[in-house]
């Protein structure tokens, strides 16, 4: 029998990640590894994780990694790319890390057009720390710090990072995807590939925002989280290419 598919070698065979069963972090980390192998750039890759569930696979993957202080992955990426321009520098951050504590660093790096890639996992909640409300939590969605659900008058509204960064001149490529269907998994992989290629071509700032799930803190079975994404998350965070400057021929 011919072996036609195997797990990416970027994931250690004998290690266990910290992800919960049914969490899309597992899927995305796998996709990143596959893209790095297909593009033959594993030995250039440096992942900068934020703090949160996004950092639970530090010991699980086989390429270089740095854990940045909470929220500062984009600042670390800026320094790293400028001093090691031949490395493929990408951040791997959740909604708290990227859009709350790290909001200043994230917007500033995008505004400077740093030639790095951001993988932004948006599941509308703080996972590792126990289900607190995030900047991207939906109205009415319950969280440990909003037990009656997010109320606009008290907590404001969910934040749309692709659209916010789209207000800046510098960013080159911004796409929002999800992993809730097989087609979307493929689209996510293609978006990651495009974002990495942009960096290799020196095009500037690219981000892939991936609408993801949290079975543990949403209080849902993994399969039910797919419905929640479809019915609740995607209307708030529509999928698609928000900006692609390659269309302008730059």
């Amino acid at each position, binding site marked *: 029998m011919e072996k036609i598919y195997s797990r990416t070698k970027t994931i250690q065979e004998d290690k266990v990640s910290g992800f919960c069963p049914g969490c899309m972090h597992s899927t995305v980390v796998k996709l990143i590894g596959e893209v790095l192998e297909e593009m033959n750039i594993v030995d250039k890759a440096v992942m900068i994780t934020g703090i949160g569930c996004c950092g639970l696979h530090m010991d699980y993957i086989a390429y270089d990694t740095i854990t940045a202080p909470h929220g500062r992955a984009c600042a670390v990426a800026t320094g790293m790319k400028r001093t090691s321009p*031949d490395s493929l520098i990408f951040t791997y951050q959740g909604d708290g890390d990227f859009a709350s504590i790290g909001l200043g660093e994230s917007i500033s790096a995008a505004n400077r057009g740093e030639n790095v890639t951001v993988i932004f996992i948006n599941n509308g909640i703080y996972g590792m720390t126990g289900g607190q409300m995030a900047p991207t939590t939906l109205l009415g969605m319950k969280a440990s710090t909003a037990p009656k659900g997010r109320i606009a008058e008290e907590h404001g509204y969910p934040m749309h990072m692709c659209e916010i960064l789209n207000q800046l001149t510098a960013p080159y490529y911004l796409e929002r995807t999800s992993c809730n269907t097989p087609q979307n998994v493929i689209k996510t992989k293609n978006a990651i590939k495009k974002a990495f290629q942009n960096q290799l071509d020196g095009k500037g700032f690219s981000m892939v925002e991936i609408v993801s799930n949290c079975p543990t803190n949403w209080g849902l079975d993994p399969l039910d989280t797919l419905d929640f994404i479809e019915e609740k998350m995607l209307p708030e965070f529509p999928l698609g290419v928000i900006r692609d400057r390659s269309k302008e021929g730059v």
Partner: protein
Amino acid sequence: MMVLAPATVQEAVDLTYAAFDYADRDMNPVLILADGVIGTMMEPVELPEMKSDEEIAAIRAGKAKWACTGHQLDYANRAWIQPGQWDTKKMQAENEKAAAMYATWEKDIMVEEYQVEDAEVVIAAYGISGRIGKSVVDICRAAGKKVGLIRPITVHPFPYASFDHINYDVCKAVLDVEMSIPAQLVQDVQAGVKGRCPIETCLCSGGNIMSREAVLEAVDAILAK
């Protein structure tokens, strides 16, 4: 971490270069504790020689093992920089290593001891207060008053041993001069003096720069006792 306190713009230059070397040697942060007035002063300085491209390439090559720039896919050889250890036993071991490293910093102490040996008043001050203190020593000595200065340049590691060079048979007091209310340096000065003579303070804060006249008055008050 090591804390360096320049008193002149030249010292700020030299200590900044040194800070990078210490940080590199110890893989540990270094704090340059410059007074705001140092940041706004203009003085002529001599900058060190630029490093050549070859020297820089050699420095980078020396860090290739641990620097996160991408490595051949091989778990054992990848670079992994993280803020601590998950395993509590390993984390304690890291802290013990760090403690052992901090203990070696005594060899890096930098201090200016100026006319301390026969001094009846010894000023203890760092940074711009130290510079003003040195000026006070010169004015007093010209008037026949025996005043000296201990100016820590490394505030940490602190030069406690310098306070053993005071002649406590003639010294009337150590004058702690600092731009801090309440006084903070005085705690290290107390640890250095070990009760062998009184300690007086001359303080200001709120953005006021230490007044040389205030220090001269404080010295005279001690000498008059």
